[in-house]
């Protein structure tokens, strides 16, 4: 049953209300949840996808955006393989907070983590952040960029599949270890001794 070859941890961060939970639900359950409350702490979901005949298990951590949950959510950055930073294209304040989120990522996440900037809610008419502004921001900070709509299911599948493919490629070429069900090396934290710079001291 659990015959996957790779397991990757994907963590979603960003202000409360930008649609992180909806993106995850859309991807894992194929639905747009009506009026669910704000996330408390962190939520955890799993979806196994196939990339080129290989089973890849994505462990998706959906975090709460509010400040009072920060000490919970921060503790999940370190073991993340990919971090999705989400803002709402119809809300300038959520875009303005991005630098704060980046600072947090710098501080707590591995330097090798795959980082993706996502502008969500493109189905909305009242866009405040033009696409090129988001794109430039992402480029400036060395991130992938994608615009999505959890509501209309735009680019959601693509977002997660691209992450899975990218992490697979990394795993094959770099030192991300293969998941081996006998010993639980489920993350990319194998700092080899010769490479002392690598994530042995993240802070």
């Amino acid at each position: 049953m659990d015959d996957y070859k790779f397991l990757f941890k994907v963590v979603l961060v960003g202000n409360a209300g930008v649609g992180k939970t909806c993106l995850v639900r859309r991807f894992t359950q194929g639905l747009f949840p009506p009026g669910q409350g704000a996330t408390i702490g962190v939520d955890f979901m799993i979806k196994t996808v196939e990339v080129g005949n290989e089973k890849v298990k994505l462990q998706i951590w959906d975090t709460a955006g509010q400040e009072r949950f920060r000490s919970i959510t921060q503790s999940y950055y370190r073991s993340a393989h990919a971090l999705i930073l989400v803002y709402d294209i119809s809300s300038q304040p959520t875009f303005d907070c991005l630098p704060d989120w980046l600072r947090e990522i710098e501080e707590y996440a591995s330097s090798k983590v795959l980082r993706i900037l996502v502008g969500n809610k493109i189905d909305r008419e009242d866009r405040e952040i033009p696409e090129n502004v988001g794109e430039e921001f992402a480029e400036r900070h060395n991130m992938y960029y994608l615009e999505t709509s959890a509501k209309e299911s735009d680019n959601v599948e693509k977002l997660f599949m691209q992450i899975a493919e990218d992490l697979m490629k990394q795993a094959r070429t770099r030192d991300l270890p293969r998941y081996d069900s006998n010993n639980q090396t489920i993350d990319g934290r194998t700092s080899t001794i010769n490479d002392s710079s690598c994530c042995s001291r993240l802070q």
Partner: protein
Amino acid sequence: MTELKYAELQKSYQLELKKLEKEEETLVDELNNMLNQKTFLEDKIKGLAKLLPTLKVIKHEAQDLVNTVNNISDSSEKISGNIRSLDNARSRVEECQARVSDLIDLEICSQGVQTAILDSDYEKGAAHVHRFLSMDQSLLKRTANDMDNISNMLKSVRTLQDAASQLRAIVTHKFTEAVNAEDLVSIERFFKIFPLLGLHEEGIKEFCTYLRTKVAAAADKNLKSAVSTPPSDKRHTIVYADTLTLLYEGLARITDTHQPLIETYYGPGRLLAAISILQKECDIQTKRVLLEWGKTRQINKKNQMINELSRMSSSSSFNKLEKIEPKDLDILIVEITLMHFRIELYNRFIQRKITSDAEVGIPNQDDRNNILKSLEQLIKNSDLSQCKHELLSHYLRLEQYYMEESVAKAIAMDSVEMGQQTSSMVDDTFFIIRKCIRRSVSTGSLDGICVIINNACRVLESDFGEVLRGRLRQGYPSGYLDLTQAYNVLQTSIQQGRLQSGDTEQSRLAFLVALNNADSSTEYVDALCDNVLKEIEQALPNLNSNERGKLESCLSGLSSVTTNLKDIIEYGIQQLRSSAIKPRINPWVDQFLNMSHHLTDDELSAYEAGESFVQTLIMNLETLLSSFKDILTSANYDLLTQVLTAEVTQRLEKVIMKTTFNRLGGLVLDKEVRSLAGYITAATSWSVRDKFARLTQIATILNLEQVNEIYDYWGSHDGALTWRLTPTELRNIIALRTDFKVEEIRRLKL
């Protein structure tokens, strides 16, 4: 007068009912008679059937019979029709009776209610109103239309309606008065009257609002006493947790005592409304307690300091003096976990109470689900839950700091006792981590537990692991190990973080202890994961599958710390290999080259009588290994012997390839390889066959009588070996035997 009229009416209806009942009786008798006749006739038909010749007669009679049967069915139809109308009549009579009794009650109530109000007998008055409210109001209207003289009845209705609103006002007013007078008997008295007047929601609201004032007063008193608790008091350090406990226990007691009252007089399913009102007071009082707690315990200042310290330590210019002593946080952390757990328990209490109240009192599934949804919202959106989250956040920051600082301290105070394989930092670190995780379990929050596990993982891999790595990185000075002096001096120098370059013995010991620490830590990690899982399952028995997944993911992160530790061990073992094993072993094995491997029979006897190459080698290996045997953990010692075996066999292989042999030389080699393998097998707990496979095969080849004997071992027959040598290697080896003919070797088909 009207009463008389009603009585007459009733009488005439009853007469009619009796008449109809008599008629029904005679009809039923008739029907029975006919039914008797029917069986009789059926018997007759049977008899007639035998009389075929008189068919005509029978046909005639059958016709008669048919007619009779038809008659019977007609009659029965008529009868059932009659019965139906009889039923109708009866239900009409019943309705009529109800209307009559409503009218009579209406009259009685309207007369009684005023007297009751005048007598201040509010229970009686409310009972009248309750009777009036329980009447089918549309039926009343219909009765009124049917009546000749409706003014009397309408008057009664109006009287009662007026009385109802009058009573509502009175009861509300009296309740307030009773509350102001703290008159418990009256409070309860009027609380029971509200629902009689149809004021369920108001009654609960008024009553719970009153209860709120009681809660507030008690909370106020408790908080004052908490604030003034002297530091000498035994419970001073957890006095705010105690205050919260009192608050929630008080609320729970109120809920428990009043639930039966509410259920009896208001009906089931009303607890949510009651608790929602109390929740507001609970929110307010909790916030007050926490505000006071925050001030007294200087929680913001501590948070700020911790934040600054973490920022400073990353820029590595921090002043040790300003640090908060982790031990000083111990007490505060305990208090927070207690407070958090109390809130958690209170939330669970509400949840349990309201759920079971809804399950008992609300039969409709949808209504019940709505209640449960409202309950979830009530808990989720309460200020209490906000406070809980904030407390957890405080807890996590403090606990994280505590863990990091305590582990740093354990490392700084690291010491190794004479004759010990590991140093104190391992025991101490895992003690701290276990303590922190245990403490997180006592918060009752799965999210909290997961975070502490994540942090433990980070501290072990980064802080703790990095120290072990660092010590191994300093290397193992080559030379023999003599520990007699090392332990004493190591004690002090290890704590300085760096050993003086001259102290080679200490450096060696420090290196080996670090290697052992890593090994012993893998066992600690495994045990930790097991124990933690058990403890969590005990503390939170009702995890759903999603929560379990979350927990297991975090725990698997912790257990994968062992991978990290194994890397560290591997690194250390490779260091040992290059500095302690390789340089020592090479000259010993190279002695092989100084020996002749072309022996005569005499030389063979002489060789065997004296000290042979392999005896010397084994003796040297023995000395080397025994110097490590007691100081290394058994797992590390095994790793070392594996590395040593690999080195010896590879080197021996190399020197063999540089030597030539005659028959007896090959014989000796075979013997020597066997005794070497025997020695190493005895010295370790793992199988060496694999490591010796190539060497054994080389010896076998060099020990052949003739070249062609190789076919005994080569090929696909039963006696053949699984070769670790390629055909080319085999040819090269066999060619080392100078007594074998080159052409013969060349002719070999491999």
